């Protein structure tokens, strides 16, 4: 487990209504999936989302190789 201040970033996605595409709403830094869920729920509470997801940034694969370095730096 990582020490405080060194947590990986999770991207947060959510949907307001049925049929609406998932949209990227922001990101949180958390030591694990469980706290990432808690943090996403408390930080991005401006809407009554019907669904919300957290995705480890390292799990998001850049399609264009050029972006690799920028993404890795924040994962």
């Amino acid at each position, binding site marked *: *487990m990582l*020490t*405080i*201040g060194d*947590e990986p970033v999770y991207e947060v996605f959510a949907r307001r209504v049925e049929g609406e595409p998932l949209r990227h709403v922001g990101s*949180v*830094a*958390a*030591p*694990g999936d*469980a*706290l990432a*869920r*808690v*943090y996403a*729920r*408390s*930080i991005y*509470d401006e809407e009554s989302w019907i669904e919300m997801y957290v995705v480890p940034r390292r799990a998001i694969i850049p399609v264009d190789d050029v972006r690799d370095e920028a993404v890795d730096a924040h994962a």
Partner: protein
Amino acid sequence: MPDLFGTPVPMSTPLLDRPSALPGECRAPLVDLIVALADNKHALGIRYAEWCSSGPTIEAGVAATAMAQDELGHARVLYGLLEELPGAPRRSEHEWSAADARTVRFVEAPFQSWPHLIVANLMVDRSLAMVLETALESRYLPLRHRARKIIEEERYHAIHGQSWVAQLAVEGADVRARLAEAVESVWDETLCWFGPPDGGALRPLVDAGVLAGAGDPVRTRFAAEVGPALAAAGVPAPVHGAGARWELARPLPWNAWNEPARRIR
């Protein structure tokens, strides 16, 4: 929802949809329980809020803020329940007085450190939630409806407490020692909160189906949840695993327990 406590409440028993339907012997213990639940939640909300801008990370501070809002909201919802009950003291979040509040000692003063907040989250917050979980199928509908709304939010508080204990445990021996010290100071009052072995003053509420359980059955559930979490984090606590059961390693101070105020004298 399965009956977690094996308490037989006949399906044919009518629901209690208003205060006047409550059996007479249930009123005083229900009022005492609601006042203590709400006062503890109000105090916990204030304590969480003091860490809004000083958590170890920005995310942690925001989560503490959200939990503070939840707890203050739960207190308000529970104070609303008192307004309907004859003979209940007048309480509201606007007239709240710490001197008069029926709270456990651990939430009476600001938390000394983030590990203290996390222990309050893991122990005090969770024990209050576990008592409210016994009302999820309550025959007293005003309580059932409020308990369901509260428990929905409490799921995230439980995840927060468990995750943070694990996170703090890897920060080093001094942080674990601080966690252990906080656990020790809150232990007896938290474990007494579920009531004496047979439920004590809460027994009439269990018999009437207002609560699904009290006393030892609820305490056993709590020990089986908090015991493994503390053991995995390497935090010493007076509880040990015995197979699937987790048992308390020392007796609770029942001679000092103030049942109506739900606190140790």
